[in-house]
């Protein structure tokens, strides 16, 4: 008789549920949750865009233009106080755009130590940038030479080193703040569309837009596959078998994304794509956008003038 095994239940000890040992979440689950939250909630969250703040009311083209000019100006500033001034301006703009200041600052400063701190730290020491000593760290018996490297007798933090490292870190902080402000207060598709106005190739921005759109689809599919697998796992898995599963999944996700890209291209052809993708620009400048652009250009010009005085 077939399916006898299916007709009878199988006994398994259920336990009390009180003997749970603390187990860490599998690395797949943590990584997937991290990536999903990063893309869906942090990068492309529209919650702040929909708040009716100052920057949200400015035309995306005006914002892309002026923020681009501010970033160029920040990279030209030599005076750290001017750079700090721009950073302060981003905080004021964040406040009037109804962005929580703690949230805004954490988001900016989270990446600074990672990307600029590592580069800036060596500049503090007299090994790389000679200057006036501020804090003495190590004193050797004599100078040491290792091939092309020269280690002075006393290693200390220099005043010039502190200034150049701080200028560099603040420059990165101000630039990142400007980009974060732009992304938080503008819908991603609108940023892409605004870029085409400034002669960024349409094909490039369209592909960026599609990447953004299909990241969501693929992330959801990967999550579903992971949950389906999780629901059928009995007991716990070691990280080796998890890694093995991830390797297999990478292949399938790649294949799936290739299939999607073929289907998407077919559907574009079906809707009239012949050679080049054409897009329509639906933005309209309002007086407030002109005021914003003029004000920004005045601030940039004055600060650049101060920088070169």
């Amino acid at each position, binding site marked *: 008789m077939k399916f006898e095994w299916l007709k009878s239940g199988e006994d398994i000890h259920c336990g009390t549920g009180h003997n749970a040992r603390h187990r860490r979440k599998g690395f797949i689950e943590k990584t997937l949750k991290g990536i999903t939250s990063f893309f869906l909630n942090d990068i492309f969250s529209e919650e702040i865009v929909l708040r009716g703040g100052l920057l949200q009311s400015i035309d995306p083209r005006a914002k892309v233009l002026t923020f681009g000019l501010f970033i160029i100006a920040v990279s030209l500033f030599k005076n750290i106080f001017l750079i700090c001034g721009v950073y302060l301006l981003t905080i004021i703009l964040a406040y009037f755009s109804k962005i929580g200041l703690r949230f805004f600052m954490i988001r900016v400063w989270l990446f600074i130590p990672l990307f600029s701190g590592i580069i800036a730290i060596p500049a503090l020491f007299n090994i790389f940038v000679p200057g006036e000593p501020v804090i003495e760290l190590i004193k050797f018996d004599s100078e040491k030479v290792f091939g092309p490297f020269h280690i002075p007798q006393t290693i200390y933090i220099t005043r010039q080193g502190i200034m150049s490292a701080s200028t560099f870190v603040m420059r990165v902080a101000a630039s990142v703040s400007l980009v974060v402000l732009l992304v938080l207060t503008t*819908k*991603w*598709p609108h940023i*892409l*569309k605004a870029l085409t106005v400034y002669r960024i190739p349409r094909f490039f921005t369209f592909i960026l*837009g*599609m990447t*953004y*759109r*299909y990241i*969501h*689809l693929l992330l*959801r599919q990967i999550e579903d596959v992971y949950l389906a697998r999780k629901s059928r796992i009995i007991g716990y898995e070691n990280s080796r078998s998890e890694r093995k599963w991830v390797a297999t999944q990478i292949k399938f996700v790649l294949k799936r994304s290739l299939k*999607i890209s073929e*289907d*998407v291209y*077919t*559907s*574009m*052809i*079906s*809707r*009239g*794509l*012949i050679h080049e*993708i*054409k*897009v*329509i620009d*639906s933005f309209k400048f309002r007086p407030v956008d002109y005021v914003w652009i003029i004000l920004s250009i005045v601030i940039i010009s004055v600060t650049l003038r101060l920088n070169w005085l």
Partner: protein
Amino acid sequence: MALENIFNVKGVSYSFLNRFPALENITFKINRGERIVILGANGSGKSSLLQILDGLVFPQKGEMRFMDHELSENTLKDEEFNRFFRKKVGLVFQNSDVQLFSSTVWDEIAFGPVQMDLSENEIQTRITELSELLDLKKLWDRAPYQLSEGEKKKVAIASTLAVNPDVLLLDEPTSGLDPRTQSALVEFLQILNSTGKTTIIATHDLNIAKMVSDKAIVLNESHKLEAEGSTGDILSDTDLLLNVNLIHKHIHSHDGVVHSHSHSHLSEHEHDHEPGPETS
């Protein structure tokens, strides 16, 4: 007056990667204004047939003609014919996710008309009117991934209709939709039919077939044309439907009497309870 021929499919065979057969020696004609349903079980080749009718894939054997023009990879390389064909024929894909590739709903509906070089005013008028008809205005600024399946399907239909095609191809339009959205869609297709558009719908849902078509083309599981005729005649031919796996024998009991009926794949479990031949 002779009916104007839209599609003329003669002895068409198509296989994936030249190895896996999808269609075998298919021949039929479709005239202007007809309401056609292509019926067949899963894997019978309905989607492939729609893609061939939309000039997206091309048969290895046979001949395809559209409004008396040869429809082939070569003829579609002619930009003028390509533009003419894409303007006349629109396809709503089964998987809305592959059809909705733009960043926002507004851009999605605008994509076709923009490729057709319509004026901005005309594009805006079409987007507004279609959005009002399908209740999409509130979704204009939303990204396709934020939409429900029903909303995605409506956007997919709007984006195809925005080009104002004479022939509308729909691949399993009701799959994955809840009953209310299904009914709304069927109602909308009926309205569309009344405007004189030719609609060709691929489905295995017999319930919607009778509501949205007058003529049915049936594919069997060997990927061949099994039958062609009025939808009413086809749907009342139980043997034919059983043969192509569109309905199945269902055995169950009522009031202690075990009897069997035929059920369509997706139809609801409702039927008259006249006892059938007793089987036990």
